């Protein structure tokens, strides 16, 4: 089957993720959407590596996973701290800084 379909899927996932970031309130969910976008990127990497017959894309995917993992660590740390001090994980509550 045509590999480009995977590209469409990844594009779709990316869009879903992006929209999710904008529409969801819960910090965790927002973060998950971002992860979704990253993985969409990964999918396209892998697809392209398949299309181009080149392995680097897949290597890239692995790196991305590692980095994503780091991101999770940092991100959760931040979200948890703020949750503890605010008793809420809604990103809309965190709007002290504006104008």
């Amino acid at each position, binding site marked *: 089957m045509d590999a480009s379909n995977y590209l469409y899927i990844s594009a779709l996932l990316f869009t879903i993720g*992006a*929209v999710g*970031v*904008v*529409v969801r*309130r819960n910090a965790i969910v*927002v973060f998950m959407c971002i992860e979704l976008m990253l993985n969409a990127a990964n999918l396209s990497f892998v697809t392209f590596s398949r299309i181009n017959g080149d392995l680097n894309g897949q290597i890239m995917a692995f790196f991305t996973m590692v980095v994503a993992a780091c991101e999770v660590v940092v991100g959760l740390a931040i979200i948890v701290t703020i949750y503890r001090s605010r008793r809420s994980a809604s*990103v*809309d509550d*965190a*709007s*002290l*800084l*504006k*104008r």
Partner: protein
Amino acid sequence: MNTSQSLVYLIALPLAGAALLLLGGRRTDKWGHLLATALSASSFGVGLYQLSQMLGRSTEARPVSQKLFEWINVGTFNVDAGLLLDQLSICFVLLITGVGTLIHVYSISYMSHDHDRRRFFAFLNLFIAAMLLLVLGDSYLSLYVGWEGVGLASYLLIGFWNQKPAYATASKKAFVMNRVGDMGLSFAIMIAFATMGTVSFAGVAEQVENTSEAALTGMGIMLLIAAAGKSAQFPLQAWLGDAMAGPTPVSALIHAATMVTAGVYLITRSNFVFDAAPTAQLLVVIVGAITLMFGALIGTAKDDIKKALAASTMSQIGYMILAAGLGPVGYAFAIMHLLTHGFFKAGMFLGAGSVMHGMNDEVNMRKYGALRKFMPITFATFGLGYLAILGVPPFAGFYSKDMIIETAFNAGGVKGIILGSVTLLGAGITAFYMTRVMILTFTGTKRWDEDAHPHESPWLMWLPMAVLAIGSVTSGFLLSRGDALVNWLHPLFEHHEEHEHHLLEPIVVSGLALTMVAIGVAIAFVKYSRQEVANIAPENVSVFTKIARQDLMQDRFNEAVFMRPGQALTTTLGATDEAVIDGTVRGVGQLAMSSGSALRGLQNGFVRSYAALILVGAVALIAAIWVVVQ
């Protein structure tokens, strides 16, 4: 042309006096007035010396010049500070320094009680210097310096008692209206330079024939405006009446004898221009004629003795201007009347001053009366001046004025008849108002205020009056004996042999003139000697009198046409500057400010909206690239 190194002293002496007294300050109070008088006298001496020299030389060798230094020298615009003394300017030099000195003497006593007397004398000297520069300058530009110099001196002297707001205003008015005239002079100079490439009298004189009449006419008109400004001619006459605010000696020297005649000098000096520009010349005549009547009419209604005299000055200068406008034939007579007028009018002003001196500075003639017995000398000298101005033979005015009337008639055609009759009529009216002055002041019954105890003035004051009186008796006869003055000035004005079509014989003219004078005197007698004079001006008078009292509405006119609109313009401009121009600038600032605060709203603090913005940005970016690529 021969040169003389001593010309500069004419100016330098009084100028030094002015500088010394002004910088010296109170230290010089003791002797300041004496020094000033001495310097002015010595300047007169130099003048006499120059005259004797001049008489010693042959006609064409008479003019002398002196180059002082290179003044303004840019490209083709080269003006040296140079002096020129010829038959014309010598007349003025002697008049200025002579009468000037007399008035210095008079002022010593007249101003003796004023604690600023020194400054007064400093200004007098300054005036003498400036006036001499005016008549000695060898180019229009150096004349200009003197021209504004006398304006300044006149401003300072009119406003000498400027603690009185009215006086301060009068001086300002004089200066500003003079500046309008000066503007004309500068235009004339610009035209001269642009068209003939020179601004010296000699240069212009020889360029005249290569220059189009249009240009010359323009220049002539501008010169006329200048003359009108200085000599209080129509339409720039309004300042002279108010100028009487100055101390009386000032009125005598500046606003009767010398400065106000500068216009006549300018026109005669520029004879070559006017002779080549008939239109301009005609305008000169017209201005002269109008002013002649204008002044005379105002004179009939004035109760303030000085203002009456001022009006008469205006009208007499009208005569001179008119004469000067009649071309070569007229110049000499204009000058002659100028000289005689210098004597009798100055004399009468000093007389008026002496009267005021005796009457606690009262100027309203309705509060005089019967002063003949109390100040006989003043009466005598004033009387002689009176006869002179009337033109009663053999007094000075008779010769000078009749000449003008006669020339006016001989101007030819309708022009001649009109001008002749105007001058005649003027003579009649002059007779009327001068007689009025005489009667109101010296005859009739006392109408004084209680505290007035008139007395004759000290000799320092009456001596100059006497001298001037002698002048007003003899000068006319002397100047016209064997056409002395005419021949003296003759070489300056080129005469295309004038076609002597005598419209009227001289004798007839004299007859007519005397008749007019007689009528004028008679009316005056009937009006003021037969019946009692109210010591406050009656209100139930003819419209005409009312108008005449208000100087024929001249101030109303200026106010309505220039002052009010000017003030309106000024205020509006001020407002516009604040609102529109500066407003625009501030507006731009405001715009930036407000748009800044508006955009600030985007930063609403919600991370999701930021993300949305990024998302939108991403889409926009793609779109933009898409557009670019297509």
